[in-house]
């Protein structure tokens, strides 16, 4: 589990999200070297919409909001460019998470399939001895299928195709964002850390955590098992 505020505040990992948690699933098929950029593109786009400027609380319950800058990022392995929040801290955090995911995908026992999840949650304080509760309100899951390509021509085609696919994903994300569904209420000063991640110095995303799962070769999904059977058969 990767994310800000490593204090374990939630129930066991993999717990089902709350019933009113919005869940969106995106799927991409990419080449190994494209995994990182594709994941960063999607995660940054989501976080662009889910970050505000830093809150500065003043007297009488008013607050002002800082300014969020943005910057263009060109991908090296995909014909694609995206916009991210201008925050090096946030970028580093995402890169770390995506890097771990990528390494896990490459690791042994992996069929090149996995998923990375970005969950936005709210903290609900509980009385001692119970730990604080994390209530997710939005969950983005990106399912990744890593493909192996045979030659340079295929790679070139893959560059373009993945670029087009990512364009579609961005449009999907924007569509969800603009449904203006549930968002946590703007918190008072004492509650702000239950809603936002205030640890960054220049921007303030909603509290989020990133986790991932790798479908290994012993995965129980039917497709994985079938593939393994076929492979074994052909190996004889």
């Amino acid at each position, binding site marked *: 589990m990767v994310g800000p505020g490593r204090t374990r505040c939630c129930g066991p990992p993999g717990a089902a999200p709350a019933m009113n948690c919005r869940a969106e699933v995106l799927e991409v098929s990419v080449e190994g070297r494209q995994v990182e950029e594709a994941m960063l593109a999607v995660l940054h786009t989501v976080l662009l*919409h889910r970050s505000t400027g830093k809150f500065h609380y003043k007297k009488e319950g008013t607050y002002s909001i800082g*300014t*969020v800058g943005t910057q263009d990022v060109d991908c090296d392995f995909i014909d694609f*460019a995206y*916009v991210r929040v201008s925050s090096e801290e946030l970028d580093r955090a995402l890169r770390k998470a995506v890097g771990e995911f990528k390494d896990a995908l490459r690791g042994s026992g992996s069929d090149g399939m996995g998923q990375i999840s970005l969950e936005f949650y709210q903290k609900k304080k509980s009385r001692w001895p119970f730990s604080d509760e994390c209530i997710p309100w939005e969950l983005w899951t990106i399912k990744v299928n890593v493909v192996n390509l045979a030659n340079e021509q295929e790679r070139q085609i893959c560059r373009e195709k993945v670029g087009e696919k990512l*364009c579609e994903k961005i449009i999907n994300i924007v569509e969800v*964002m*603009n449904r203006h569904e549930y968002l946590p209420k703007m918190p008072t000063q004492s509650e702000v850390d239950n809603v936002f991640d205030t640890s960054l110095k220049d921007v303030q995303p909603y509290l989020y955590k990133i986790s991932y799962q790798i479908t290994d070769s012993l995965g129980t999904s039917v497709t994985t098992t079938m593939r393994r059977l076929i492979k074994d058969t052909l190996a004889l």
Partner: protein
Amino acid sequence: MDTDLSSQDRKDLDKFIKFFALKTVQVIVQARLGEKICTRSSSSPTGSDWFNLAIKDIPEVTHEAKKALAGQLPAVGRSMCVEISLKTSEGDSMELEIWCLEMNEKCDKEIKVSYTVYNRLSLLLKSLLAITRVTPAYRLSRKQGHEYVILYRIYFGEVQLSGLGEGFQTVRVGTVGTPVGTITLSCAYRINLAFMSTRQFERTPPIMGIIIDHFVDRPYPSSSPMHPCNYRAGEDNGAVYPSVEDSQEVCTTSFSTSPPSQPAALGVGSADMGYPVLFAGGLHAAHPHQLIGPGKEGGVPPIPSQPAHGTQADQERMCTPLDGVHYSAATPSSSEDTETVSNSSEGKCGSPHDLLETIFVRKVGAFVNKPINQVTMANLDIPFAMFAPKNVELEDNDPMVNPPDSPETESPLQGSLHSEGSSGSSTGNTHDDFVMIDFKPAFSKDDILPMDLGTFYREFQNPPQLSSLSIDIGAQSMAEDLDSLPEKLAVHEKNVKEFDAFVETLQ
């Protein structure tokens, strides 16, 4: 009903919508500048960052947007549209996208203006930032330079989608409900770009596409001139446009967590807050590295709005971002075709004041610039001087249009894509009558000396006939030839020994 909205809320809402429209235009145009945009986050709020987003204001763009709006706001039936089009160095143009900011009648009475609407508008701007990188025009705009430029045009009124060709696609960026209507932001973009894919622009010489000549038969009543999307923040640019007139307007940055009955501390539109005005000045001071691409070739000259008669006002608007001084960036990159139009006429980088302040209107051939206004060309020492006529000449007199000998350069797609109504392509000129001109060979100056290159060419290419092939010689009939044969043979036999001796010397 409007009566449900307090006057303060109404005023705030109008302000939000107005500045949202202006920021929308800025985001769209900046996304088509061809460069990566980077703005910094700031934890301390400043009064000039509307919607809590760092979006710079290019003065020219704000000026054009305000002109188009003319004090109105987007309303039902009155949409603000930003049209993005592509124009090649030959003058062909094509609409790529239309971004529409519309308002419909669906009202949301319950929504809080100063808080929810504002935040949702901010979210919508973020979505716009994301979506502008995703449409096909983004990649085209990143590669603009020598062969084509991206232009923008802002208009207000009814949306005109006919220029996008068949089968255009639309993407909705988002909607925000307000008490007076629902704001919708969407983009319609051309997908029929197959012959104008970025790859084609990289590999082939200027390509002719389907020519939509905006500037002759503009169907729109509220036509406004096109503007290039490659802004150069030169020193004189700041002075060209007036700074934002309502520079006193400061955006809302304070919110309240208190219940609505309590007065909310909003930043109202006055200078009382004491925030500095950063719209115009900040562009240069705070982020001088932004929006200027030093490596970006400003090679394509400004595009006028009218054929053949650029008015002075238009000229200013056109030329300002790409004044003669700024042509200095027209360093041909190694990958570009250095014979392109812009490089040939602009001369060397080192002498910007010798450069042409020309306006290129009609395309007359692959490698020819046809200046309409007088050319302020210094001397004949600049390269390709022969291609730039010293005074305005007819198209027909241009040696590259009707070259005496060399074949005209044709792009591979001309034959298949040339449509009717095109304004003078090089293939079109074959229908014109040939006019006798003085032959001016390449790389040669005027024939000051009689035995110069030109003379050599002329003689070389028009040699006299070989005498033995001349028909006059054949005055003798065949019979006479045969009769004279025996005499000739006798003479040769007499000289056999001489011939043999000669042959032996050869061996």
